[in-house]
């Protein structure tokens, strides 16, 4: 079964809610840590970011995300599940572009594993972003 780590456009409220609803199914989890990365309306040299356009190398994203999950599961014995969802395409300022959802037996492992997953995503996931300003000019990040 191939898991899809990418979603077209922003990570929707519906998708987040659906993941949170599933928490109750596993009564051996004591803590869930959820990271949501959001597009900021940064001002750069007087111009305001209105959106980010993400592009990704899909096959490599899947391979790297699988590696990240394996790394976390082997390092944190109490982690029960890890969900990773990253946007591709246009995500407007104020919308969510990354979700990391980690469930564990106890809180410390949930927290540490979630933070580490986010760091590994930043380092290893082949995703690129183009910040688009209100005047439609852009810069690559």
């Amino acid at each position, binding site marked *: 079964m191939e898991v899809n780590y990418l979603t077209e456009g922003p990570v929707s409220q519906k998708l987040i809610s659906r993941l949170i609803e599933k928490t109750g199914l596993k009564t051996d989890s004591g803590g869930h840590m959820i990271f949501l990365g959001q597009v900021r309306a940064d001002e750069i040299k007087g111009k305001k970011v209105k959106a980010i356009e993400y592009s990704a190398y899909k096959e490599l994203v899947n391979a790297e995300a699988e590696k990240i999950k394996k790394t976390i599961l082997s390092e944190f014995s109490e982690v029960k599940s890890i969900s990773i969802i990253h946007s591709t395409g246009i995500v407007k300022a104020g919308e969510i572009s990354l979700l990391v959802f980690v469930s564990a037996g106890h809180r410390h492992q949930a927290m540490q594993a979630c933070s580490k997953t986010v760091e590994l995503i930043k380092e290893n996931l082949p*995703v*690129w972003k183009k910040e688009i300003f209100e005047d439609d000019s852009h810069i*690559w990040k």
Partner: protein
Amino acid sequence: MEVKVLFFGVLAEVSGTSVKHYRDVKSINDLKLRINDDFPEIVHYNFRISINSEITDNNLLLKSGDEVAFLPPFAGG
């Protein structure tokens, strides 16, 4: 023989395309020379290379059907 070359992020902008096919390239270094000829601007950018979804820093030999990708520094999140 022919390989498929993918350009991502800013490199897709620099090369004006996200995919291009090259014939008769023996190795990564060979391919890099060809790409430098086509898009001289590329020399100003940092990138890594993957072959068939596997990142490598070595000058590997290429075979027909290989997918080579030019990857600028990752910027997810």
